[in-house]
């Protein structure tokens, strides 16, 4: 065998979970604080149990914005553990942990290689012809040069691995740092591109070269759902790459959508939610989960749900049952996107005030002036001298404003609703 290594990226050690609105109960919060560390520890243990030759980390070990001494110390601690087992480590830095960022004075083990701001080729073994790792780190956070192209053509002798934090093919969901194309990667002569930056696992190219984003080992956001982990890669003597994904996250992020239409009572809905929770727990492979529930559809239950504290009560009910378990399923919030059983088209043709409200909302979407009038006053909050520093970035643009108008319309119609059979 040429080489056996673990390819990890975007550890974001000690960076917090985002998007949470509720304060988690203590044991859940503890699980969340330590989740990135726990995932890292799982990676270290995987390296040791699988007796790999090296651990490759493709950038964003921790967040510069949340520079944590603890994160850096823990990272080195893990590498030291590998060193004592004779496992080497190779690290490049990305936009979140560029080389110009603050770093604690730490003693990295001898067997660890951290790449600088120029491409370097480092043999993994004493025999330089077995495998070579080419790596480069970001000198600063916002680095938009095409680093892949800067590498040029590598020595075709040994099995070559490229360790790089980059946005390949301009993924619009991620910042365009070190952008490059698949073509740039293919022409470099690298056999395995160990990439980082994109948090969702992707295999951009199966072979010649193999190009992989392993994703982050621990989801930190409601959008980062499902299993998260690293790639265990084996390269046989013939240079063939065999890679397997290994989930590492201790806490999973999940979403659950429930259509309220079939339910007449809260209990029926609650039963469905319990069923959903059990389903999630069954699918997490013994791991805990943080769940965001979205209620959809139209139904009578919507009126009940809009009662004050109704949603909070549901959350409490669910968490009372599931959050205390081990592994836990903690419902972080229930978003009520359901609507009352309301035939908008029919009401729009009516002559009453509700019809006028609906028509006004419709007009607002095509009449910028009306939309501006309806959105007037929002700047009171979003540009408020005290709160703009938190909120200005969330100020709704025109498209978001239209979405808000829909919500506002639903709210207004509901408030106007009289006691009749619709």
């Amino acid at each position, binding site marked *: 065998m040429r080489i056996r290594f673990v390819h990890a990226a975007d550890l974001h050690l*000690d*960076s*917090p*979970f*985002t*998007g*949470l*609105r*509720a*304060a988690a109960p203590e044991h859940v919060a503890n699980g969340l*604080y*330590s989740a990135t560390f726990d995932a890292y520890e799982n990676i270290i243990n995987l390296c040791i149990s699988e007796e790999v030759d090296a651990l490759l980390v493709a950038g964003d070990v921790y967040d510069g914005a*949340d520079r*944590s*001494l*603890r994160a850096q110390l823990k990272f080195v601690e893990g590498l030291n553990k590998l060193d004592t087992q004779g496992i080497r480590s190779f690290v490049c830095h990305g936009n979140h942990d560029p080389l110009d960022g603050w770093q*604690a*004075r730490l003693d990295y083990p001898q067997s660890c290689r951290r790449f600088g701001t120029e491409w370097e080729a480092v043999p993994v073994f004493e025999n330089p012809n077995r495998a070579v790792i080419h790596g480069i780190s970001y000198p600063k956070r916002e680095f938009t040069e095409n680093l892949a192209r800067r590498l040029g053509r590598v020595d075709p002798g040994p099995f070559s691995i490229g360790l790089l934090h980059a946005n390949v093919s301009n993924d619009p969901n991620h910042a365009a740092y070190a952008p490059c194309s698949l073509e740039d990667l293919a022409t470099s002569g690298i056999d395995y591109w160990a990439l980082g930056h994109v948090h969702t696992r992707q295999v951009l190219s199966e072979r010649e070269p193999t190009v992989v984003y392993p994703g982050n080992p621990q989801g930190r956001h409601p959008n980062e759902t499902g299993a998260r982990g690293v790639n265990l890669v084996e390269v046989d003597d013939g240079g063939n790459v065999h890679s397997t994904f290994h989930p590492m996250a201790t806490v999973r992020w999940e979403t659950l959508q429930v259509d309220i239409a079939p339910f007449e009572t809260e209990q029926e809905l609650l039963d469905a939610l319990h069923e959903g929770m059990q389903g999630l727990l069954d699918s997490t492979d013994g791991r805990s989960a943080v769940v965001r529930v979205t209620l959809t559809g139209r139904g009578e239950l919507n009126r009940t749900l809009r009662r004050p504290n109704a949603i909070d009560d549901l959350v409490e009910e669910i968490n009372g049952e599931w959050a205390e378990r081990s592994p836990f399923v903690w419902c972080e919030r229930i978003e009520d996107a359901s609507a009352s059983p309301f035939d908008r088209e*029919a009401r729009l*043709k*009516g*002559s*009453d*005030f*509700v019809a006028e*409200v609906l*028509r*006004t*909302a419709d007009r*607002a979407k095509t009449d910028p002036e009306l939309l501006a*009038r*309806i*959105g*007037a*006053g*929002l700047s*009171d*909050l*979003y540009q*408020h001298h*005290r*709160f703009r520093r*938190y*909120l200005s970035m*969330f100020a*709704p643009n025109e498209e978001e*404003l239209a979405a*808000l*108008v829909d919500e*506002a*319309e639903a*709210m*207004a119609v509901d*408030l*106007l*609703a*009289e*006691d*009749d*059979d619709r």
Partner: protein
Amino acid sequence: MKILSLHIDGFGRFSDRALGPFQRPVTVFLGPNEAGKSTLLEFVRRVLFGFRTARGRTPSGYNYYPPLAGGRHGGSITIFGDGGEVVNVRRYSGGGTVGLTAESGTLLPDVELPRLLGYHSRDVFQKVFTFTLDELHSEKLLSDDSVNSQIYSAGMGASKLPDARKALYNGKTRLFLKGGNKHAIHDTAGAFDRVESSLRDVESLAAEYGRMTDELENVETNLQEVSRSRHSRRKQLDHQRLLRNAWDDWNGLNQAEVQLAELPAIDDFPVNGVSRLEKLEERIGTAQKEYDSVDEEVGEVKARAEAAVEQEAILSHSSHIRKLERGRTSFDNSVRDLPKRESELLDHDKSLTAALKDLGPDWDEARLENFDLSLSVREEILRYQERLQEASEALKRSEAALDQDGKALKEAEEAENKADRDFGTSVKPDLDSNQIRQQRDLIRRANSRLDNISRVNQRVYDLQSQLDSLKSAVPPARGPGGSRMAATVSLVVGIALLLAGGLLGGPVLPVGIIGGAALVGIAAYLFASGPSSPGAAAESPLAVPIRESLRKAETELKDLQSALEEEAVPLGLETIDELSLITADGALDEEQTRVYEWTRLSDNLDGMKRRTRQRKSQKEKSMEAVKEAEAQLEAVQREWRQWLADRGLRETFSPQTVGELRGKVELGLIQLRDRRSLRQRIAAIQKDIHDYVAIAAPLASNFGVPFDRNDSSTVAAAADRLIEMHTEVGQRVRDRTDAKADLRKAKHQLKARASELRKAREEMKGLIQSGGASDVEDFRKRAETVCRRTDLEEKRRGALGRLQGLSGPGEPLKALKKQLGGTDIQDIRDKERLVEEEIEKADARISELSTKQGSIQTELKRLVGEEESSTWRLDRHRLLEEMRGHAREWAVRTIAENLLKEAQGKFEKERQPGVVRHAESFFNDITEGRYQTVFSPLGSSEIQVTDSSGISKQPNQLSRGTREQLFLSLRFGLVRELGQRSERIPVIVDEALVNFDPDRGLRAARAFVELSQTNQVLVFTCHPTIVEIFQNAAAQSGAQDPEVVPMG
């Protein structure tokens, strides 16, 4: 759209009821209260707009109008659309959907219905197009937030608008209020800032960590250097301390060697010479002292051994002296006891004499001892006692029974006399029980006979009536003819009144109906009650069998009556009727009571006689029993007297007396025996005293002790003196014997002491010679020299050994000696102090550096272990998310507020003026120009009216009728306005005009008639005048007459 017809399957009081078709623009449903008008109005609303389900939310007091008279809950309405289509709309409760069928029979999709209903909501239909009097004038309507809002809400879906705006505003300001600081976003931002501040503090920790690691490195380097330096100083210090420790020994070694050289050498001096010499001197001293002491003791013992003893001869009477000693206490007791016993003896003599005297003059000690006190005799006495007592008691019992029987007999005789008197005075009844029973049967039979007579009588009467009716062909008599005439007149007038009421209606209606009904009733009665006239009927074939039956019945009646007369005889009655039978029955009841009383008294007398006889016989038996008991007692007494004679006892003694005598004899015997034993004891005491005196007397005489044998106290004193003397002489003789033995032992010891002293003196001489000395003094001097030399040699050896211990043997020892030889103690001490000071300084430095190292390490550990920042970072994101959520909700509420504002502005601008304009026109017409304008100021939620003098008024300033006219006008305005853009749907009103004066009522009806040109009008009323008003209004407007549908 128009409603053509209704079919109610089941709804409220209606079941399978069809109404219609309604062809004219205005249809008036006229019916009394509770005819179902409101039910019909609700039926229309529900079939067109749906039933509320029991499960859904319903307002309180909601009436479901269940199908009380049967049928399926619901029905259908046939409507005629503006487009000319005829559609049947069916709807039933229970969640079923609406069904639409075209005239051709094809089913239409549900969505057609909203179109046909002009897309109006149920609210619009209910509040604008269909309304009751209550809904029209409701005070609630006026007391609501604003009339305008209520009017719009009545049809415009904006009744909740003020609440909605309020809710939006409240929700919004809870989240954020410009210029305020008590809202959620402010709170969250505050919490966020606090977390940020904590995080900034944590960020500075990282730089601190770098600085600390540098400092730690410096401290550790310094610590190593200082430790090394201290180590070498420590070695120096150890060497100086070694020299200092060796110095004393070095000095001692030198001194010992010098002193040894100065002392002479003495060989072969005895080992431990001085101590041996001293021991011998001590031994000689001790031996001399012991010799002297023993010599003195020999002299003393010799004197004792040779001393003489007085009265030594008493020892030869030791056996008598011991007897005196042993009997000494007993002698005292005897002397003391003797007079007491003699006194006791005297008492005993007296008691015995008294006991004998008590028994009788013929009693002495011999008879006492011979009296038979055996148990058998005692039992015999007891037996006689029991037998006598039993016989005596039996006699008493018999006598008591006899007494009791005598009293009972007397009572019975008195009771018999009383019963005899009672019976003698009672009256004997005329009849006995049997005769009474027979008479009762006769009365029962007569009663039954009377019932039969009555029944047959009725039959005769009925048959007679039938015959009379058959004779009716004959012209009626004058009386009944008048009745028939009156009936016919009543009937004709009644029917005429009913018709008049029905046709004319209005105020005539109640009079017509009530009067007509009454007259028709009278006619019916008169027809029915005309009497028939008997005997006037011609013989009809039908009369034959009736007449036959009549004859049979009459015969039966006669038979019955004659039977009854026969039965009257035994009862003693002349005629029999119900009253006479009841009287006869009462008389029988009284006779029966008399029979019962006579029988009771007779039975009582018999019983009493029986009892007297029984009591007499009982008394005779008791007398015999008494005699028998007396004989028995006499026999036992005889036997007893014989027993007493046999024992020489008086015959008069009873067994108890003999028992008591026997007790006295026992007592006398005991006293006799006690006196005998006391006499024996006194003799024994006297003998003891005599014997003791006999021993003591000769001894007292021999040894000169005073003695008087008649004086017991001198006897006792002499005995005591002799005993004491014997003891003293014995002791002195024993002491002399012991002294002789001691003298022998002392002499032997004196000899041994002299030998020991001699031996010690010889050993001393030998020792002095062995030490080469001439005498003891010389010996001591030589010994001191030897001792001094030995000490010095020991000292030299010790010092040398210790020095070697410090340096080690061989060369190091030599080097040490050399070093010590080349220095002095002061120099050594100075150097040691100097090095010690240097070490102390190094120690202080090490301690300082270690402390610093420790605190840096602790701080680093703290920095490394810091975990709170993780919490804070999570909190920061959470709070930001919370703030974002609040902001979004606030934005939605703000937009909703703006949206409502925009819609309201447009709504009021486009819709309201038209509504108000139409309303104004109607209101002006109805009030005949009294109120000329109706308006709603823009942006306000008020309606105002202006009267002809230009004064503006709020609706609540108007009278009730005028206010209702205003709301009616507003509804007309809305109907007209809404009709311009959609299907024109019917207007249905329930008693809307009742509060209007006739003029305004007529004008309002004209407005309805005018409205009916575009919208079908259905009016429900219970007032015929309303019908009239609508008819007049139609006539005045030249419109088609309203169709009137009677109900009830």
